[in-house]
Structures are given as structure tokens and as C-alpha cells.
């Protein structure tokens, strides 16, 4: 893994109130090479390589069990790969694994929130953990069309997916890792999060999108197919 010796990329100035996604004018890139992982006797992920630059999306497809989710978890720093390198660069500095975890935005089907808390309380908790103003939670919930005071345990699966999106965008990440990002969403919900993804890419963010079926993403898109 490549580490830089310089100071870590720090969150700079927040963009204007109109921007819900990445800060403009900051460079970001994510390069992974030969990333592989096995779980005991099962090869969950064969060596995978790819490269995404600012403003680009990489769509990762593959059959069930091809290792899409495993790849995204390795890139997010939630899983240590058995081999290969991941280099996530922001503002010219390569991030260490803890910085990577703090800087990415992650949407995945097995990501859950606290059932006892409302959607708003959940996001406010995570905003506080990251040292962000609590108002950010309300802004994002409004943007994805979720009621603030509905208990997370009482959300439908589509609403949960919207909550995941709002959660992923809290800290205005420049790299989004999206595992089946549109699942369970209704038309309106999908339009709304596609809008967020479009803004994110336009403002110079990058995204890696995993899906078992081919997926249309607007803008500069490259493809990676996992499995044989």
C-alpha cells in the first residue's frame, strides 16, 4: 500500500448550500491493482484491478458471488484484502486506511442503522461523530425525500435505501462506493439519487458502482466485469 508522508488531506471549506455532494475543485483518484480476498476455502474475489479519476464512474458487474461486494468492502477499508494495492488520492496525498474509511461515501445492502432512533436522529448521530453540523442531516433527508422523525426500524426497504444514500453523503465524500445503489427504490427515489450521483460526478467526485445487472450511469463511465 502506498502512504504519503505529508499531512493527510483535510476537509477544506464546505461548498455552498446548494451543493449536496462533492466539493468542487479538488482532485481525487482511486486506483486498485490485483485486489483479492478469500474467505477460508472460498475465493470470494479473484484479483481485480481498476482506475477511476475525478468525475468518472466505474461500473462493476458480475454474477452473484463474483465478488462485487467484497471488492467494494476492500476498497472502503472494511475488509483487509489478501493481496493487491489500493491507492486513494485526495488533493495529491495518498490516504492511509483509517483516512480512507473516514473519507469515502459507502452505500451497501447490508448497511443498517439504529432501529430505536428516527432517521433524523441516526444521521445527526453520525454527523456528530464526524464533527459535522447537525443541520446537514435535515438537508440530506429532505433531499432524498425521507420523513425526519420516522423510526429507522419502521422504514420500508426503499426508505432504508434512501437513508443509506443520505448517510453516505453526510461528509461530502469525493469518492462514492455504491453497492447496488438503486435497489428497492421507486421511480421517484431512483430519480432523486441519480440526481445526487450526477451532481457528485459533475462536481469532480468519483464513483464505483456495483450491480449484478448492467446499469446505465450518465457521464464518463468505464466498466469492469468480475468473475469468469
Amino acid at each position, binding site marked *: 500500500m502506498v502512504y504519503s508522508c505529508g499531512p493527510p488531506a*483535510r*476537509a477544506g471549506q464546505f461548498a455552498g448550500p446548494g451543493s449536496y455532494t462533492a466539493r468542487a475543485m479538488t482532485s481525487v483518484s482511486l486506483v486498485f491493482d490485483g485486489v483479492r480476498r478469500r474467505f477460508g476455502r472460498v475465493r470470494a474475489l479473484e484479483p481485480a484491478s481498476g482506475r477511476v479519476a475525478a468525475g468518472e464512474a466505474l461500473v462493476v458487474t458480475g454474477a452473484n458471488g463474483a465478488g462485487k461486494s467484497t471488492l467494494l468492502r476492500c476498497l472502503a477499508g472494511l475488509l483487509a484484502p489478501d493481496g493487491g494495492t489500493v491507492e486513494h488520492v485526495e488533493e495529491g496525498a495518498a490516504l492511509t*486506511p483509517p483516512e480512507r*474509511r473516514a473519507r469515502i461515501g459507502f452505500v451497501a445492502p447490508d448497511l443498517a442503522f439504529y432501529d430505536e*432512533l428516527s432517521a433524523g*436522529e441516526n444521521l445527526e*448521530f453520525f454527523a456528530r*461523530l464526524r*464533527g459535522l453540523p447537525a443541520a446537514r442531516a435535515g438537508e440530506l433527508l429532505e433531499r432524498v425525500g425521507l420523513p425526519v422523525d420516522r423510526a429507522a426500524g419502521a422504514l420500508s426497504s426503499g426508505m432504508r435505501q434512501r437513508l443509506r444514500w443520505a448517510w453516505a453523503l453526510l461528509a461530502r465524500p469525493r469518492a462514492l462506493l455504491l453497492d447496488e445503489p438503486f435497489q428497492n427504490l421507486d421511480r421517484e427515489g431512483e430519480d432523486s439519487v441519480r440526481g445526487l450521483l450526477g451532481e457528485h460526478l459533475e462536481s469532480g467526485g468519483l464513483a464505483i458502482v456495483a450491480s449484478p445487472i448492467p446499469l446505465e450511469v450518465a457521464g464518463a463511465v468505464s466498466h469492469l466485469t468480475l468473475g469468469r
Partner: protein
Amino acid sequence: MPSPTSHWVASARAVFAKDWRCELRSRYALNAIGLFAVTTLVVTSAALGPSGSNQAMAINVLPAILWLILLFAAAAGLPRVFVHEEESRTANALRLAATPSALFAGKVAFGLSLLLAIEALVAPLYLAVMNLNLASPGLFVGALVAGGYGLATGSVLIAALASQARGRSTLFSVLAFPVLMPLLLLAIELTRNSVAGDPAGPALPQLLLYDGTVTIAGLMLFPAVWNP
């Protein structure tokens, strides 16, 4: 941008507040620990009677039983602080948002306050039903606080380990008892001294040393437990 220290403290406080808010809405740990403690209290009291008037029992047996009640009460409720995060799939969201040592501090603060609340309920009841008179109440309270601190910190650290493995609850007891054994022996010795009217002796500095050791070990080792 807040300073790193104030951000760390704010994160730990956010975890503490979140855990109490969820706990007060579900009452799971409070009910489990409280009912466990009261049930064992009733059983031992029914079996032994008000045996505190017997000096040999009061000094040699009753302090040990009090700490066994507290140990099992802690084992009934404290593993949940991390096991529940894994089981409800909120752990990954927390991994991506929280500084590990601040998360650990917040969890310890929650476990400690929970255990002190239970001690405040159980200890006076125990003294009353056992007819146990204290020669030095100050030392008794000191033993409860210093012992409770080590019990909470050690249990939370072991809960973090056990939550990563299969058979979490059973494994917790197997892992925790050797770690907590010196603490229990010291706390029992101090409690016995408080009943007998003896000075605190070497057990007090040793108990404080244990508390300090477990705290430092926890803060140093927890990041490796929590993140790949």
C-alpha cells in the same frame, strides 16, 4: 474546524448519548442486568438468610457473593454494547464514521454508567437483606467504584473481541473470566476490608493499577480489534 481533542471528546460523547438513547427506548440491557442481579440477590438471600450478623460469614463469604452477582450481571448485559452493533449490522456504519479510540471511550462510559446504576440498586439491597454492617462505608463505595470501573472497561474490551467471533455470548464468559479474575479478587479483598474495618492495604493501589492497565491496553488495542 474543531481541534482534534475536542472532536475526539465530542465523538465519545455522541456514542455515549446514542447508546443511552437506544437503551432507554429498548431497555434491553437495563432489564437484563437489573433482573439478573435482583434474581440472584433473592436466591442468595433466601439460601443464606440475614447471615451478615455472623462475623465469619460477613467477612469470608458475603463480599465474594456480592461481586459474583455483579460479575454475572455485567456478563448478562455488557457484551451487548458491541455484539448488538454486529448483529444489527450497524457496525460497518460506525467503522466508517468513528475514531476507534473515541468509540471505545464512549462505549466504556456507557458500560460504566450502566454498571454503576446497577451497583447503586444492588449494593444497598444486598446490605439490607444480608444484614451486613459496614465498618468503613467509604472504602465500600471506593471498592464498588474502582471495581466497577475495571469490570466495565474489561467487559467492554472483551465484548469487542467476542463480537468478532462465532458464539459470541458463550465465548464472552470464557474470554472475560480470566481477564476479570484479578480485578474480582482485589475488589473482594477491599470489600472484605470495608466489612471487617481493616485498612485498604495493598489491594487498593493494585486495583487502581489494574484499572489503569486495562484502560491503556484498551485504548491501544481497540483500534486493532475494531478495524482490519
